[in-house]
């Protein structure tokens, strides 16, 4: 390859080659500003409406260039997963790698095409900025490197959860959800960016980032330990919690939220039950306080308080009207969602710490509140919402018309019930779905066929039940008719034959409050041997007796309690569904607050003589 001949000395006219350069453009760069490329990584922009202050950008920055700054006045909503923090960038550290952009869950942060900033020595602080959509100098430079599907590093997709198909599950009460295996759990746990929105949104502030991280690290006992810091109903919440955490998850803003509930289920199932009991006992007081606490109702609120109080050294007795503990978790939620044997484990952990439960003991019947007041130093009520409401349409008092809570209780207690060949359910909430799907299974077992009609006042878009419940109920053969108002129970030869309903024209008034209007011309008859009402529930407070009821303070039908669950009587607390409406994890949170309050009260009760 002798194309470059070093021996070629050129000719005499060689230097004249230079003249050709006069005709050429000079090789130089323009001094004026030049626009940067479309993908340029310049100074930061941040859309404050999209930004949720999750701090993921701060975590991934390799130069610690990002500081999260609290900006008062910005929206702050733990339930939705929004913080009033915004990232500030120190350009003395930033290397413009754009990892913050690629890992931002919402896609709010971007790099612009602006790249020039100069200042005097005295203005060096101007290199530390709190970027918003207007950019470092407030001049409108377009976005450069911004969120794109190519470079998006956020793990948007969730590990799918295997569930039983309708045909497999319709004739049994086995748990529908299969749970994650070790590999799925590892991958799902790895999606978490550890922002802590879940912790803020959880009613009992579970340490979800910690237990997710522990699962990812393979430290399952550590995960159980983190779970038990705030929630002794771990198996339960790992299956049926309303997962506010997932609603607030920052990854969930654009992708699927981390499956925090399924991860909790995984960790609890993976650790040996005896070991769980040992972990739950860690940190308990090694003394007995000598104080006695009575708790009415062995549900999530009562037993969480019992768990805390017994660990603090107090003597706790729980009085439970039913034959087993768990409250609505056992007697309201069917096995296919919440297997009883897992609930038994949660309860076993609590009783193994020394909590005494007296079953088949109904306060108000077997013993009075006055006696509890006399024999115990503090009393807590956690009696739940066990009275099913009725529409009280004509015929609602017939034998063939039942309340969903009563039926579900009977099925859970193992009592045999008369399985109707066809049934009509009134109601559109989760309880209605529970009873519909329970009866569907019983029908399949007894008759080989499901004939269930479910009617509700609301239209489908406003059903109170979870979307998954509605979908699964349909898959199991429940016929769902929305926007229908019950008018009358139909009878034939003294037996319930069905329900007559009118169509609901509109549900909400202009103010958005519930105010249905009917259309009598749109009348339907729904055939059924059994009509089940699942429209609402109330607390059965008859146990208090008239005298106590008069002394207590009430607020719109519910016991009035302060922020710690205490009534106006210094010895009486109330918590859970009866006080704040139905939700397991909120009941757990209540239980903790009540336990703290009782413990503080018991700790100062004795005075020096």
């Amino acid at each position, binding site marked *: 390859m002798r194309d470059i001949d070093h021996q070629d000395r050129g000719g005499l006219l060689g230097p004249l080659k230079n003249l050709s350069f006069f005709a050429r453009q000079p090789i130089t760069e323009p001094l004026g500003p030049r626009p940067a490329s479309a993908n340029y990584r310049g100074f930061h922009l941040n859309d404050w409406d999209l930004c949720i202050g999750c701090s993921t950008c701060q975590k991934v920055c390799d130069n610690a260039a990002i500081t999260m700054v609290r900006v008062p006045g910005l929206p702050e909503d733990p339930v939705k997963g929004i913080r009033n923090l915004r990232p500030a960038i120190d350009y003395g550290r930033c290397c413009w790698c754009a990892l913050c952009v690629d890992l931002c869950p919402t896609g709010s942060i971007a790099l612009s095409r602006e790249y020039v900033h100069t200042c005097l020595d005295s203005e060096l602080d101007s290199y530390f900025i709190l970027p918003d959509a207007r950019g470092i100098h407030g001049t409108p430079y377009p976005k450069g490197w911004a969120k794109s599907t190519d470079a998006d590093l956020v793990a948007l997709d969730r590990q799918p959860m295997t569930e039983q198909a309708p045909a497999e599950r319709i004739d049994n009460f086995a748990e529908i959800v299969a749970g994650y295996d070790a590999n799925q759990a590892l991958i799902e746990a790895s999606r978490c960016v550890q922002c802590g929105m879940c912790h803020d949104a959880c009613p009992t502030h579970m340490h979800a980032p910690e237990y997710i991280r522990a699962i990812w690290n393979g430290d399952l006992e550590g995960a159980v330990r983190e779970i038990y810091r705030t929630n002794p109903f771990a198996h339960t919440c790992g299956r049926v919690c309303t997962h506010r955490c997932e609603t607030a998850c920052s990854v969930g803003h654009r992708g699927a939220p981390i499956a925090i509930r399924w991860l909790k289920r995984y960790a609890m199932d993976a650790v040996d039950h005896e070991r769980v009991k040992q972990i739950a006992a860690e940190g308990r007081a090694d003394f007995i306080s000598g104080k006695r606490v009575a708790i009415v109702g062995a549900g999530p609120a009562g037993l969480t308080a019992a768990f805390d109080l017994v660990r603090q050294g107090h003597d706790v007795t729980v009085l439970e009207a039913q034959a087993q503990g768990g409250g609505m978790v056992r007697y309201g939620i069917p096995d296919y969602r919440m297997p009883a044997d897992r609930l038994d484990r949660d309860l076993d952990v609590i009783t193994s710490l020394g909590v005494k439960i007296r079953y088949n003991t109904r306060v108000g019947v077997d013993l009075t509140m006055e006696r509890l007041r006399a024999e115990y130093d503090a009393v807590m009520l956690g009696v739940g919402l066990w009275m099913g409401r009725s529409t009280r349409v004509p015929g609602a008092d017939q034998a063939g018309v039942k309340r969903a809570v009563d039926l579900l209780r009977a099925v859970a207690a193992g009592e045999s019930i008369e399985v109707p060949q066809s049934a009509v359910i009134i109601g559109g909430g989760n309880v209605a779905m529970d009873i519909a799907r329970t009866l569907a299974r019983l029908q399949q077992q007894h008759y080989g066929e499901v004939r269930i009609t479910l009617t509700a006042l609301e239209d489908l878009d406003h059903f109170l039940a979870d979307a998954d419940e509605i979908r699964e109920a349909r898959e199991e053969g429940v016929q769902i008719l929305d926007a229908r*108002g019950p008018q009358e129970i139909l009878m034939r030869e003294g037996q319930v034959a069905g329900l007559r309903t009118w169509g609901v024209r509109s549900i909400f008034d202009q103010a958005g409050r519930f105010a249905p209007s009917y259309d009598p011309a749109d009348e339907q008859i729904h055939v059924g041997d059994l009509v089940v009402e699942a429209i609402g529930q109330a607390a059965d407070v008859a146990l208090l007796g008239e005298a106590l009821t008069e002394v207590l303070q009430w607020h719109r039908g519910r016991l009035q309690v302060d922020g710690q669950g205490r009534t106006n009587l210094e010895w009486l607390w109330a918590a859970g569904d009866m006080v704040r409406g139905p939700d397991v994890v909120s009941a757990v949170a209540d239980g903790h607050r009540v336990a703290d309050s009782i413990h503080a009260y018991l700790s100062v009760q004795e005075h020096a003589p």
Partner: protein
Amino acid sequence: MIEGHQGSYDRIKSKTSLKEVLEVACSFEASARDFYRDLAPKVSKNIRWLAEDLAAEEQSHYDLLRGLADHPDIDEPIAVEVQTPANNTRFSDAIHLPDLGPQPDDQAVLQYAMGREHIAMEHYQSLAEGTAPGPIRDLFVYLANEETKHKAELEKLYYETVHSGGV
């Protein structure tokens, strides 16, 4: 004097002066208020708030009508009301009026209250239909709309109370 009774209907219909019509309406509201006031101590304390709230509502209706009756110039507020009628739902149509019984619960009290409002509304409506166009007819329409609004408020409260806690 019991609202809904045929005698009251005739009583109003025989009136011709606006002020006199309002006086009768006031006494109706007062009788309703007294009913709820009497009911309050008879019910259990946890639902006493309902009876007390209803009594207070009736008192405020009474005060409104009293104010109109005593006002020298009562044409304007009524005219405004006539132009914007309230929604008339049939929700409480579907609520069947029970016997209140000795120890009514919150659902029974609300059903009864809605029924009372409904009957009052119907009465004022039929009075309006039977009156020639004019200020008295406008007054009946106004009163009917007021009762409809009261009934609508009770329907919302009924839903929140009875259909709550059902997840």
